């Protein structure tokens, strides 16, 4: 029986030895966390315009990008397919009928006589009969400039409310 040649034993590190002390490099981690924090703080903006998030805007590739958001009244038209009805909101405030927005639009027109514009954020499924009522109300308030909000590209698939 041949003698076993003494094998060179691989030295294993005992991670659980009492004298083993692990130190996490905290300073680098804190640097990263601070950088991330500063990034998210800087990119976050408070949504002052109070636009409705329930409006699925239509897609138009040739629409213009406009940076100037001053002198604008925003009208949201949310669509309820089941009830075949529209929820009308102006500057975040709900209204029952299109003609109810004439007084606030007239007030807006008085405040912004030259450059006043109305932005209509209508859901892509809203039938024209509802949009037409809003256009008539805007015309009645003597505002000539109307913009339809669109998106340049299709939105990613929506997560249904309730997480389903």
């Amino acid at each position: 029986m041949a003698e076993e040649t003494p094998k060179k034993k691989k030295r294993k590190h005992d991670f659980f030895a009492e004298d083993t002390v692990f130190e996490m490099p905290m300073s680098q981690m804190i640097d990263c966390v601070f950088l991330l924090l500063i990034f998210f703080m800087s990119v976050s903006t408070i949504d002052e315009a109070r636009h409705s998030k329930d409006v699925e805007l239509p897609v138009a590739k040739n629409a213009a990008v406009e940076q100037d958001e001053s002198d604008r009244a925003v009208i949201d038209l949310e669509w309820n397919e089941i009830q075949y009805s529209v929820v009308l909101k102006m500057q975040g405030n709900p209204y029952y009928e299109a003609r109810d927005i004439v007084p606030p639009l007239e007030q807006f027109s008085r405040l912004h006589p030259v450059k006043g514009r109305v932005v209509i954020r209508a859901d892509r499924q809203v039938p024209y009969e509802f949009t037409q009522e809003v256009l008539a109300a805007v015309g009645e308030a003597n505002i000539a400039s109307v913009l339809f909000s669109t998106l340049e590209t299709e939105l990613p698939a929506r997560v249904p409310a309730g997480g389903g």
Partner: protein
Amino acid sequence: MRVNLDEEQRLDIPMGPMIDCVFLLLLYFMAASQIKLEETYLGLRLPSGDTESKESLPAELTIAILESGEVLCNEVPVGARGDRELDVLRTKLSSVIDLFGNEQPVVVHPQPRVRHQRIVDVLNACSASQVKNLSFFANQ
């Protein structure tokens, strides 16, 4: 007053709670942030008393949008139901604009139940063809 501290009494900044706070802030901003999609706009001018012009304008071009989604230009079909790009309409509008300039009046006449996306498709084609004098037909 200067306070002399021994080695053992040296003041340390408590890093643990500070990192906790920073992590909480980070989580808050990560959760509250959302990618904002930039909105674009298609404009039109509504007729009003101030903007009425007495100049004679060429005969208007009427674009009808049927409930089926079909698009007609002066009663000639220029776009089928699923045609989102409306290339035939664009070509027609471009040739008219080349002839009469971009003040050529174009009236969009959608049927009451036409969906907004289809109207925007037509407005998009008008925008691509440099139509500036655009208005809507008012259904009674």
